[in-house]
């Protein structure tokens, strides 16, 4: 299963790409997704806090990612 992840801001810049493909054997929770993404993108640990969005809404840690949703890493926002 592949989870296609949208990247923005400092995470996009440090990853050198606006998307990331995370390979998983099965569906995973947002909590597990964070741990796995932090292995691939060390900038996430440096940030301290960041949100995960699923289908254009902030997601809780127990939301299950199946590969069918739109998933995004949301670093701390600074609009306005």
């Amino acid at each position, binding site marked *: 299963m592949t989870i296609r992840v*949208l990247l923005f801001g400092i995470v*996009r810049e440090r990853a050198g790409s606006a998307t990331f493909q995370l390979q998983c054997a099965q569906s995973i929770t947002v909590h597990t997704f964070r741990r796995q993404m932090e292995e691939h993108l060390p900038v996430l640990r440096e940030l301290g806090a960041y949100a995960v969005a699923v289908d*254009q*809404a902030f997601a809780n840690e127990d939301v299950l990612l199946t590969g069918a949703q739109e998933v995004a890493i949301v670093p701390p926002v*600074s*609009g*306005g």
Partner: protein
Amino acid sequence: MIMLKKTQLIFQSEAMDGWLREHRSASSGAEVVFSGIVRTDEHKRAVEYLEFEAYESMVHAEADRIFEEVEQQWKVNAVVLTHRLGRVFPGEAAVVLAVYARHRYEAFAACQYIMDELKKRLPIWKKEVFADGEAWVHPHP
């Protein structure tokens, strides 16, 4: 009356002109407009420009959720939000929010609420670009 809700993300400052006044109507006695202007200096350094990027589809979705919260708390006729993307220079507006209501109390309160929530929740990011460097701004984890 059903509240009118509009959000736009634009690259050109000219596109902001005229956008707000289209939504004036005689049923709204109050028009409260907030403009967020790019300052000439941050942290005692001269700003060349700010660079904004957004997760655009989620900005619209999250803004709609904020507007629904407004609708549940105040009687507001219309909310019009516009935010710049790309480079925005000192003295230019990065964000303009207009709230229309029958009376000023609702318009002021809703305007304050939307700006506070926008800063916490809308997936928009800015980078400050100075003559001698640049930095992403991360005030709201």
